[in-house]
C-alpha cells in the first residue's frame, strides 16, 4: 500500500516537472510544424520542404566578375587616345585644365586641335562630356568640358567594353569595373594613358577582385525580377559569400534552367500616334547602358544611353509622329515583355534638341517623392531588360531527376531507420533491459522529430546533407544517453534520489562540454555559408541544442521512473 502511494505521487510529479512540460510542448509544436496528413489522391504528405537533390530540379551558381580599383591617368592622354581611336583623326592636345589633385578650379576642360572637321554628334558619341567646336584657319579647335573622373570612366568602359562606376571613398575615387580584369591587365591598360593603379601606403596596389555589395544585390534583384516576370514563382535567388549567386530551380531540368537564365526579357520603346495606337521605336538591344537613378531639378531620373542606331531611330520617329513638335500629344511608352513600365511625354527641351540632332544620353523622370525614387530604381532594372549589370560566369550547376530524387529520399530515410535499429540492437546487447532500450530509442526518435519540426517551422529545405547531419546528431545523441545511463546506474542499480541527482548533474557536465565542442566545431561551416555543407552544419547544431536542452534532460527523469517501477 505505502509503496503504491509513493509511486502515485511520483507519477504526478513527472508531469509537473518543467523540463517534461517543455519537452511535451516542443513535441506538439513539432507535430504542428511538420503537419503530417493524408490526402486521398496525393497520399501521405507533410509540411516539410525538401532540397533539390531529394525533390528533383536543378541549380545554377554564378560568379560575378569585376574589379574595384583606384586609378590615376593623364587626362590629355585619355582624350587623345579615345578621340583618335574612335574618330580616326590625329589630334593635338593644346591645353589641359584639370588639376591633378582633383581640386575643382572653375571650369575643367581639355582643349585640342585637328585639321579635320568635327561635328557635335561625333563628340557626343564619345560620351566624354559637353564640347564647343570652333573652326578657323583650316583648324578645328575643340574644348571638351569634362572631369578626370568622367574621362577615366569613359576610357575604362570603352577599352574594356563594360560598365564602369565611380564610387567616392574618403581616400579618393575608386572605380568598379564590371567585368573580369586582372591587376596586371588593368596596370598595362592605364600605362597606355600615362597612368597606373594607385598604391596603398604599404606599397600594394589599390585593387581587388569582385564587385560592391550594392552591385551584387542589384544583380540578384534583376535575376529575381526576371524569373518572376516569366511567371515562375518561388525560384529562390540567393547570394552566397561575397561574389556568388545561387539559383534553385525546383522541378525544372538543367537545360531549361540555363535557357531561362540566359534569355533576356523583351524591352521596347514605342511612341504614341493617336489615341491608343503607337509605333515601334527600338528594342532593348539598342540601349547601350543604364545609369544609377539620381535626383536633380526636383525629380528622380533614371539615365540611360542609346546606341547610334537607337538614337537615330528615336529622332526619326519623334519627328515623324510629331512628338518633337507636340510632345504632350505623343507620349513615349516603355514596355517590358509587353507590359507598360513607363509612360511620359518628351520634355520640351529634349523635343527641341531632337529636331536638330540625335540624342544619345536620355533620362526618364519619375517625380519627386519617395515613391518616385522606387519607381526610378524599378525602371533601372526594367531598362536593363534582364541584362545583368556585371559580367557573370557559370561556376557550378547541378541536376537531379525527380524520380531519382524520390529514390534518394526513400533510401536515405531507410538508411536512417536501419541505423536506428542497429543502434537499438547494440544498446540491448549492452544493457539487456528493455526498460533502458525503450526510453533511449524513444528519446532518439523524439530528437529527430523535433529537428524535423524545427525545419518545418523555419521553412528550411531538407537535403541529403541535412539528412547526414540528422544521422550524425543521432550518433552523438545516443553517446550522451549512454553517458547518462552509465552514470546513473553506477553500481548496476538505481541509487537513492540524492545520489541520483548528484550523478545526473555530473553526467550533464560531460554532455554539455561535449555539446559545446561539437557546436563550436560546426559553426565555421554555418558562418562561411559553404555550399551544401551549411545544411549539414545547421542540422548538427540545431540537433545538438534540441538534444541537450530539451530531450536528454527528460531522458534522465524518465529512466529513473522506469527503473524504479521495474524494481
Amino acid at each position, binding site marked *: 500500500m505505502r509503496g503504491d502511494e509513493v509511486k502515485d505521487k511520483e507519477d504526478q510529479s513527472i508531469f509537473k516537472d518543467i523540463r517534461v512540460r517543455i519537452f511535451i510542448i516542443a513535441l506538439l509544436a513539432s507535430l504542428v510544424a511538420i503537419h503530417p496528413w493524408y490526402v486521398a489522391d496525393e497520399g501521405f504528405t507533410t509540411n516539410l520542404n525538401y532540397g533539390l537533390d531529394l525533390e528533383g530540379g*536543378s541549380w545554377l*551558381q554564378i*560568379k560575378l566578375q569585376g574589379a574595384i580599383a583606384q586609378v590615376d591617368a593623364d587626362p590629355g592622354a585619355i582624350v587623345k587616345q579615345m578621340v583618335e581611336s574612335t574618330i580616326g583623326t590625329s589630334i593635338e592636345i593644346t591645353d589641359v585644365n584639370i588639376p591633378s589633385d582633383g581640386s575643382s578650379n572653375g571650369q575643367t576642360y581639355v582643349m585640342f586641335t585637328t585639321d579635320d572637321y568635327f561635328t557635335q554628334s561625333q563628340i557626343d558619341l564619345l560620351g566624354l562630356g559637353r564640347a564647343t567646336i570652333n573652326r578657323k584657319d583650316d583648324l578645328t579647335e575643340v574644348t571638351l568640358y569634362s572631369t578626370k573622373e568622367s574621362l577615366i570612366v569613359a576610357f575604362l568602359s570603352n577599352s574594356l567594353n563594360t560598365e564602369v562606376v565611380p564610387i567616392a571613398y574618403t581616400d579618393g575615387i575608386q572605380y568598379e569595373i564590371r567585368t573580369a580584369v586582372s591587376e596586371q591587365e588593368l596596370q598595362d591598360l592605364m600605362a597606355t594613358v600615362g597612368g597606373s593603379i594607385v598604391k596603398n601606403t604599404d606599397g600594394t596596389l589599390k585593387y581587388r577582385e569582385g564587385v560592391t555589395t550594392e552591385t551584387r544585390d542589384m544583380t540578384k534583384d534583376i535575376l529575381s525580377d526576371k524569373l518572376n516576370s516569366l511567371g515562375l514563382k518561388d525560384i529562390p535567388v540567393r547570394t552566397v*559569400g561575397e561574389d556568388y549567386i545561387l539559383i534553385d530551380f525546383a522541378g525544372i531540368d*538543367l*537545360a531549361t534552367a*540555363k535557357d531561362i537564365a540566359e534569355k533576356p526579357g523583351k524591352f521596347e520603346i514605342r511612341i504614341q500616334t493617336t489615341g491608343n495606337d503607337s509605333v515601334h521605336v527600338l528594342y532593348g538591344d539598342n540601349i547601350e547602358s543604364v545609369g544609377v537613378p539620381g535626383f536633380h531639378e526636383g525629380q528622380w531620373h533614371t539615365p540611360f544611353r542609346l546606341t547610334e542606331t537607337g538614337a537615330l531611330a528615336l529622332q526619326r520617329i519623334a519627328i515623324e509622329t510629331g512628338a518633337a513638335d507636340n510632345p504632350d500629344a505623343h507620349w513615349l511608352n516603355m514596355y517590358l515583355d509587353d507590359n507598360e513600365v513607363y509612360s511620359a511625354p518628351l520634355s520640351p527641351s529634349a523635343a527641341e534638341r531632337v529636331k536638330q540632332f540625335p540624342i544619345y544620353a536620355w533620362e526618364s523622370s519619375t517625380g519627386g517623392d519617395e515613391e518616385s525614387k522606387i519607381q526610378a530604381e524599378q525602371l533601372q532594372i526594367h531598362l536593363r531588360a534582364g541584362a545583368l549589370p556585371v559580367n557573370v560566369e*557559370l*561556376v*557550378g*550547376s547541378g*541536376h537531379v*531527376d525527380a*524520380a*531519382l530524387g524520390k529514390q*534518394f529520399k526513400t*533510401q*536515405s530515410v531507410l*538508411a536512417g531507420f*536501419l*541505423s*536506428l535499429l*542497429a*543502434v537499438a540492437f*547494440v*544498446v540491448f*546487447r*549492452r544493457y539487456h533491459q528493455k526498460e533502458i532500450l525503450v526510453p533511449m530509442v524513444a528519446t532518439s526518435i523524439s530528437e529527430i522529430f523535433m529537428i524535423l519540426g524545427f525545419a518545418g517551422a523555419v521553412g528550411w529545405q531538407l537535403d*541529403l*546533407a541535412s539528412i*547526414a547531419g540528422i*544521422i*550524425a546528431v*543521432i*550518433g*552523438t545523441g*545516443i*553517446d*550522451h544517453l*549512454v*553517458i547518462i545511463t*552509465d*552514470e546513473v546506474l553506477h553500481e548496476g542499480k538505481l541509487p537513492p534520489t540524492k545520489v541520483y541527482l548528484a550523478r545526473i548533474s*555530473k553526467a550533464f557536465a*560531460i554532455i554539455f*562540454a*561535449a555539446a*559545446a*565542442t*561539437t557546436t*563550436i*566545431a*560546426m*559553426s*565555421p*561551416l554555418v558562418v562561411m555559408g*559553404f*555550399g*551544401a555543407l551549411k545544411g549539414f*552544419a545547421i542540422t548538427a547544431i540545431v540537433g545538438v541544442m534540441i538534444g541537450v536542452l530539451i530531450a536528454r534532460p527528460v531522458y534522465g527523469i524518465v529512466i529513473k521512473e522506469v527503473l524504479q517501477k521495474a524494481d
Partner: protein
Amino acid sequence: MSFSLTESLDLFVKEHNNRQLVTIPIVVFMLSILALALMFASTGAPVKLGMEFEGGTMIAVTTSESALSIETKYSDYPIIDARSAGERVVMQFGPMDNKVQRALEDDITASYSDVEIKQIGAVYGSALQLQAVKAVVLSFIGMAAVVFLIFRTAVPSIAVVLSAFSDMTIAAAFMNLAGIELSLGTVAALLMLIGYSVDSDILLTTRILKRRGTVEEKISQAMHTGITMTTTTLAALVVMYLVSTYSYLVSSSLPQIPMLSDISIVLIFGLAADIMNTWLLNTAILRWHVDRSTPRRRRT
C-alpha cells in the same frame, strides 16, 4: 561484441605501462603522416581532391550499358572515368567550355533516365578548397579553445586535442589508402569526427580527474561507457554505409548516395582510430599525469 572488446582492451591497458601504450598510436600516427606526405609530394595536396574541389563534371545515369561502352561513347568529351554499380553508371569529366557542356547535358538527358549532374568550375573549386581548409582549421582551433576552457589544465587538454588531431590524420590517411577523394561529404565527416572524438575523450578525462577511486578502476569504468558509445555510433554508421553504397546488390536499379557513403566510411575509420587514440594514447597520458601529481605512496 562490445563486451569482449572492452574486456580485452581493459586487460591490455592494465598489463602495459604508459610508454608501451603510447607507442602503438604514435606509430600509427607517424605512418599516417607519412601517407599524407607521400600524397602531398606527388599531387600537391595531402589528400586526393575530388571533383568538387578540382572542378569538372560528374554525371550519373541509369543504364544497362557497361561503363566501358559509355566511356567509349563519350570519348569526344573530356571523359576521365566511368564506373558502374548495379545499373548506375557514374562518369567523371574534366573541365569543358559552356557550349560543349551544354551539348553533353542535352545528349545525356535525351538518352538516359534518372540523371544526376553536378558541375563545378575550376575557379569555384579552388575557392571551395580554400574555404574547406579554413573551416577545418577554425573548427579545430575552436574545439581546442573549448577543451582548454573546460579542463583548465595543460596536460589533459593537450591529450584531448592531440587525440582529435590524430583521429583526423588517420582518417585522412585512410582515405588515401582506400582511394577516397576529398569531397564536401568527407570534409563534413572530418569535422564531425572532431565532435565524436571529443565526446569520449571528455568522458574519460572528467571521470579520471574529477572522481574518487583508483585510476585503474576509473579507467575501466570509463572504458565500459566509452566503448558502448563508440560501438553504437559505429553500428549506425556501418548500416548507413551499407545502405548508401551497396543497395544495388539488393536491387540493381537502386542508386548509390555518394554523400552519405563518403561521410559514413570516413567516420567509420575515424572512430576506429578514436578507440585506439582514446584508450591507449589519451589514457596513458592521463595515467602518467595523475601518477605524477599524486604522492608516491598512493601508487599501486
